[in-house]
């Protein structure tokens, strides 16, 4: 017996008797004996308190960034987390339900997704957004495959900015090969920004040009120029966003003619969680809706004419189209989309703007004070515009500096040399509204001690 198993021993005997069986083993008679085992070589079940302390001991063996001034970013950000978010996420009506295939008893989940889709279209300034993808990296993959489909598979090169998160590019490489797509990488100019002319020259007839803004180095790209350069080649323009909070202050790529804006929305109320689950998103223009991957909720009415929501365009999906589906994605990140929806609706439109302004102000303040300290510390791209992240170089390699600053009690960021790229070896430092003036002081003091 176990608390999570509904039938006790007597129940089992009673059901077996009803089935006319002597032993439960008879129910498994179709499994050939040569693949069977008597028991698994592992411990038997344990009580709740034992499991709790085992898991707690693993949790306590980690250093929680809540406890020290933390400037870690590079795709995963620490933002405010209203208590409301986890309270809603803990509602069993949401977290223990399935994909809303039965609209009559799933209007809660369906309406949440509809609201999420609407929020994301407003932030990206595009017409349609799906119900989520696994994460930012796979969202980039889906965007490239989407572009390939929209152009009917006739263009097999994808132009990708080197300043897209290097991990995303690695993930793209994993998929591109089997899809028959060649990935061409364009490095940034000396200011860390992508030059539209170099994009134009990168490939003859690409299916897409993908750029990230703000990019891996924190720098805001020339989106209007890049969109124009892309459109001239007949390719689709793809904007990747890893720091979704930037959309509170920066216009979405849709405004400049980007065909796809996609990426990671972990910033919207999703815990860092050692890398997952996070929240991939994907928005595009309406004319390409039938090529869009992932689930979509639409508004309709019920038999009595009341507004009701349901999954729509399901025929693009694997459970109907099978081998001809736009993507093999099935389970996605529904609960994380709920988190983002609650978070955005708590923060509000003006609130999101203020939050982004706060990130910007704190980042500019820290940059100013670093410039003040001077040698051996410096900003790698001092004149380039940033939102809430920048590349810092100093007396040593990135990993060394991160370690020395950690010893001074500050998690200063992520070493840029974790991945190869044409950027200096330093620290990618992120500043959010959670970094107080005291955190900035601590950072500056630590820098002064490490020189």
């Amino acid at each position: 017996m176990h608390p999570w198993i509904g039938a006790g021993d007597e129940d089992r005997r009673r059901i077996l008797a009803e089935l006319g069986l002597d032993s439960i083993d008879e129910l498994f008679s179709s499994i050939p004996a040569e693949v069977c085992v008597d028991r698994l070589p592992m411990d038997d079940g344990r009580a709740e308190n034992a499991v709790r302390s085992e898991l707690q001991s693993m949790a306590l063996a980690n250093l929680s960034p809540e406890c020290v001034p933390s400037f870690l970013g590079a795709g995963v950000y620490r933002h405010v987390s209203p208590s409301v978010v986890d309270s809603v996420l803990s509602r069993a009506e949401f977290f223990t339900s399935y994909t809303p295939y039965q609209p009559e008893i799933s209007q809660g989940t369906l309406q949440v997704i509809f609201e999420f889709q609407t929020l994301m279209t407003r932030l990206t300034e595009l017409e349609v957004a799906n119900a989520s993808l696994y994460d930012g990296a796979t969202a980039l993959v889906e965007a490239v495959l989407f572009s390939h489909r929209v152009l009917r598979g006739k263009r097999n090169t994808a132009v990708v900015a080197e300043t897209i998160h290097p991990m995303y590019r690695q993930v793209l490489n994993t998929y591109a090969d089997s899809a028959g797509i060649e990935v061409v990488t364009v490095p940034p100019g000396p200011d860390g920004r992508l030059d539209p002319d170099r994009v134009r020259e990168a490939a003859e007839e690409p299916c897409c040009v993908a750029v990230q803004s703000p990019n891996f180095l924190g720098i805001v790209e020339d989106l209007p120029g890049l969109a124009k350069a892309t459109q001239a080649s007949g390719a689709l323009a793809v904007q990747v966003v890893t720091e979704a909070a930037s959309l509170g202050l920066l216009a979405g790529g849709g405004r400049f003619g980007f065909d796809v804006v996609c990426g990671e929305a972990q910033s919207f109320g999703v815990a860092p969680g050692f890398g997952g689950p996070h929240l991939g998103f994907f928005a595009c223009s309406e004319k390409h809706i039938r090529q869009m991957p992932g689930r979509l909720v639409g508004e309709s009415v019920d038999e009595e004419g009341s507004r009701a929501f349901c999954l729509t365009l399901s025929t693009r999906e694997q459970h109907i189209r099978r081998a001809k589906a736009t993507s093999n994605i099935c389970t996605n990140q529904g609960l994380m989309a709920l988190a983002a929806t609650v978070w955005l609706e708590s923060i509000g439109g003006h609130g999101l703007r203020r939050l982004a302004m706060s990130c910007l102000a704190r980042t500019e303040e820290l940059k100013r004070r670093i410039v003040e300290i001077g040698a051996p510390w410096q900003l790698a791209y001092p004149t380039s515009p940033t939102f809430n992240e920048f590349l810092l170089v100093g007396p040593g390699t990135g990993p060394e500096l991160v370690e020395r600053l950690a010893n001074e009690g500050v998690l200063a960021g992520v070493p840029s040399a974790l991945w190869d790229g044409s950027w200096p070896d330093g620290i990618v430092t992120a500043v959010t509204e959670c970094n107080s003036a005291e955190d900035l002081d601590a950072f500056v003091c630590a820098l002064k001690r490490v020189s």
Partner: protein
Amino acid sequence: MKRRAIRSEPLFFERNPRRVQRQGYMLPALDVPEVEPTEVLPPELVREPDPDFPDISEMEVVQHFHRLSQLNYAVDEGLYPLGSCTMKYNPRLNEVTARYPGLAGIHPLQPESQVQGALRLIWELEEALKTITGMPGVTLQPAAGAHGELTGILMIRKALEARGDVRQVVLVPDSAHGTNPATAVFAGYRAVEIPSGHDGTVDLEALDRMMDETVAAVMLTVPNTLGLFEHRITEISKLVHDRGGFVYMDGANFNSFVGRALPGLMGADAMHINLHKTFSTPHGGGGPGAGPVTVSEALIPHLPVPRVTRDGDTFSLLWDDPKSIGPMRGFYGNFLILVRALTYIQSLGADGLRAMSDVAVLYANLVRHRLKGAYHLKYDAPSMHEVVFDDSVQTRHEVHNTDIAKRLLDYGFHPPTMSFPLIVHGALMIEPAESVDPEEVEAFCDAMLAIARECETDPNLVKSAPHDTPVKRVDEVRAARNLKVRWVPEESP
């Protein structure tokens, strides 16, 4: 007390219609000098005006989502017998451990010395899954079952390439879940269907004819989507291996034989495990899930990076390996889902996991026994954890499986799966899962029997169902013809 029946809830965008300033959350005070955005950013890139959605108070937010939640059915409400989806209880202990700040709050790119506990947790779950499957390698990266499938097929592709053997085809049974053929095509292969034999399992003669040097892999769901165990599984594996192919096992239904049989002994080269099915992590209204893939020796070199390695008591991450297929996603997997699964596995242990499968199979057979007189059973072989009926008895009264499903809602139960297996027309695929009490399973059977009687005595009652849900049948045709996939204010259509 009269309780307010919640049937609908305005959209967030319809709240605060005057768009006055309200506050839903107080941000940390700005304790640094304010910056004018256009002075430090290119002005054309700055969003003007603010993001266009309302600000509402905290209580309004809470009420909004509370009311929305009341429109959902959930596992905590009653039986959720979706076949193949395994809607079991989501233990509350999982939710506690996954919220430990030392797990939920840590950043994936902190120095390894600061995250030894998290790396150990990954390593421990890997070891547990290897033990449970009897397979020597594993990756926890995949975010869901379909993602695991793709990971497995890409590893197989890489292994074939490594020996200079380029193949074009993946064989998939006609009973397979739709993700299987979609995955094969996504991985660059052609998906070819293997017909099912008359007993519902793979037609071995057909496989013998089809399995040639063009076939990279055979994807098999064990037990299959009809709830039937591929009893010739070892013969099938041998046939595939002898001809240079690989066996991919779809572990969506693994929950029917945990602790009784090992996929490793069946000859599987790769198998994904849906942690959100077998190992109790919540479905979350459509994810997040997790789809770790266990592999045979032949595929270990090709596992995705980054990988966790162990040296004594120190754990590290291996980021590069030329033989690897590369990363399948960002970071190391849906880590907080992995935390829940490890919590579940440690709680149940060897004895509990076996009992879990036992009761899952027992319940399915109880349903089968009670309903087989009222509903038609296309394949009469022994059922495992789920049983597939069809509506051929009821269609005589012009009642279809979808009508039966909608009528079940009136009885307070979630309907079974109907969209597949495609080889059963009008399918009703029922999987009770082990966590409910037997009385709940019996009540479900009673409801199904009552509906079967209604199909004869009052078919219109069933065809016009549901009668007692927050909304009635939704016009899906209208939703698809007249696409409205975001809210647009009425005055500016």
